[in-house]
């Protein structure tokens, strides 16, 4: 997929739609193309960006260190979850390996009053929002379909139906508008919504409809697409002929591609997009160009469809390594800090494992709970029947 195809028909018509680009470090298409915003090279060198630099410079040393801590801790959590799955403690796990910067960068750009609508892979965003990561394991362990109250940390439930959450996010943002929580100038009040989705999801009609509704209503929502290059076994070319960030324009709002493995760039781009949303400037489409380093889920076998050389290339773009280098060379953090984070990660891993194993299986009657908010005769009757039926076994066992 090339970013710079020329439009034969439009040219034939004397209409030149070729997009003109401002100066950004040149980069071949397979590395995200010349339009990709990058603040850190894979080698950890800082690239200047006049518009975005102030956003990064506003971050304190603690905040900058915090981003690193987030990256490392969530990667550790993820590794632990993968291990738990291998040991049969989880039925499935969807690893975020490689996408930490995209998630932490965007997650940390959110304000407390903002709302995030995730797919099933946004463990890093959940972490930034303050959701206890153990709660993320419930659905993968099979003890529930969603183990947290979405309104507690403004982090909504994981959505498995691809793309659906983009409409929920847009509707939520329409609610924010009706509440008058946009453009008041009060930084504690003005609210943005962020919708996460993948490159594969971009094909779903739901996602395009979300762009339509958000555009028409000028709603405060950021569409955050993690382009991790793969939708299970299907590469980008099976989903789109144009770079995904181009999608937004035709729906009436801006799109931007950011290096998804560059936590600073993701932070800055998302912060700007969210701020525009809060101010009443409407939606933005952010494509975070990243890579799924692992399998789609623990059920998947990527050797069937992709070559290891590709994975090798992306290893050199690792989001944590690059940020660590910059923290070091810029003197923002030292070895002691890195060690402390390592220790904290070990502790997190241990605690997560322990608490996962301690998660109780729900009682069978739980399946009748919350099907309806108000009394329902069929549920009530079936629940009663089930309870009695279960009891009859226990009696038998007792006898």
């Amino acid at each position: 997929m090339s970013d710079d195809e020329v439009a034969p028909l439009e040219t034939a018509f004397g209409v030149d739609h070729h997009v003109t680009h401002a100066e950004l470090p040149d980069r071949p298409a397979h590395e995200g193309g010349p339009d990709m915003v990058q603040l850190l090279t894979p080698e950890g060198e800082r690239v200047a960006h006049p518009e975005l630099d102030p956003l990064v410079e506003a971050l304190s040393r603690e905040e900058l260190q915090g981003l690193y801590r987030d990256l490392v801790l969530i990667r550790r959590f993820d590794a632990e979850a993968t291990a738990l799955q291998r040991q049969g403690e989880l039925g499935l796990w969807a690893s975020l390996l490689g996408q930490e910067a995209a998630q932490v960068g965007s997650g940390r750009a959110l304000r407390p009053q903002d709302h995030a609508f995730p797919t099933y892979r946004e463990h890093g965003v959940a972490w930034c929002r303050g959701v206890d990561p153990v709660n993320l394991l419930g659905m993968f362990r099979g003890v529930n379909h969603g183990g947290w109250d979405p309104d507690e940390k403004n982090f909504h439930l994981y959505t498995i139906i691809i793309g659906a959450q983009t409409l929920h996010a847009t509707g939520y943002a329409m609610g924010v508008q009706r509440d008058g929580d946009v453009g008041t100038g009060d930084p504690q009040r003005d609210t943005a919504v962020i919708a996460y989705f993948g490159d594969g999801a971009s094909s779903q009609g739901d996602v395009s409809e979300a762009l339509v509704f958000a555009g028409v209503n000028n709603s405060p929502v950021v569409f955050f697409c993690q382009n991790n290059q793969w939708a299970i076994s299907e590469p980008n070319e099976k989903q789109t002929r144009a770079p995904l960030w181009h999608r937004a324009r035709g729906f009436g709002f801006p799109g931007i591609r950011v290096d998804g493995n560059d936590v600073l760039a993701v932070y800055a781009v998302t912060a700007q997009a969210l701020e525009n949303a809060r101010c009443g400037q409407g939606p933005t489409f952010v494509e975070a160009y990243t890579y799924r380093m692992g399998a789609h889920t623990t059920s998947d076998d990527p050797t069937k469809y992709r070559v290891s050389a590709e994975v090798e290339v992306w290893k050199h773009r690792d989001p944590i390594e690059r940020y660590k280098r910059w923290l070091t060379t810029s003197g923002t953090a030292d070895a002691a800090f890195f060690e402390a984070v390592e220790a904290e990660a070990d502790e997190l891993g241990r605690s997560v494992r322990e608490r996962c194993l301690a998660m109780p299986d729900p009682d069978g009657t739980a399946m009748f709970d919350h099907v309806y908010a108000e009394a329902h005769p069929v549920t009530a009757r079936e629940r009663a029947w089930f309870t009695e039926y279960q009891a009859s076994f226990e009696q038998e066992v007792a006898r």
Partner: protein
Amino acid sequence: MSTTTLAKGITTGLRAAMEKDSRVVLMGEDIGKLGGVFRVTEGLQKDFGEDRVVDTPLAEAGIVGTAIGLALRGYRPVVEIQFDGFVYPAFDHIVSQVAKLHARSLGSVRVPMVIRIPVGGGIGAVEHHSESNEAYFAHTAGLRVLACSTPHDAHWMIQQAIETDDPVIFYEPKRRYWDKGEVGEEPAGALGSARVVREGTDVTLLAYGPMVKTCLQAAQAAQEDGHSLEVVDLRSLSPLDEETVLASARRTGRVVVVHEAPTFLGLGAELSAMLSERAFYELEAPVLRVGGYNVPYPPSRLEDDFLPDLDRVLDAVDRSLAY
């Protein structure tokens, strides 16, 4: 007490709900200035503004999907689907999200949404404008399905639908929109209840929506032939008011279910199965089903042949009595 059409009964019900609760928001295609193709929302945008009566883009998944988001923000969206046959693009959001979010969130999230659907045939319309798709939604756990049949119920049931914290599919019998009736001061029963609308002793007719009137006409005609038919308006299709249905079936011993939807796996199937499970020895005859044929809804010049009418109901009554 006032006399009005079924359509206007819904209008006044919506208006009352909107006045009572500022978080009630109407969404749909052409419901603003136009007042909806059936004029059910007429005047509401003028009075409540464009933020509360929203002309949405032409995309049903988008409408229901964004309504979910609004519900999560604490709003109570009332969605109008323009015609029955246009609800399917939103099917995924209805069955996978609207119906399941409350359970998925272990009760922390509610989706108090009403999806209004003008339903059924009899108005001479083109394809996709005359369908009866209630069985799909009634088979879906997590949804409530209501069908009104009179101006009174239209007025009150839409308010009950908006008030419940559960999502509701609300069917409006489009060919009865212009039928007039009185709207009383109180609902005719709680959410979920059926109602015996005519008492009788020989055979029970179970119906809902547009077929209630047809069954009442049939009962009238049967009386002249010396048969006493009881007519039950189910009002709620999910859950069913099994007690009211059972009581009537036990009284008469004979039941005919009437609906416009094809009989194969239609509501009549569930009612028949339930009645034979719960009143096996009390039924004198099998529960008989009068419904649409198992064909796509036909061109309008054939709809009179497709739709159950007085004669077909009476034919089934005769067959039931012959057992």
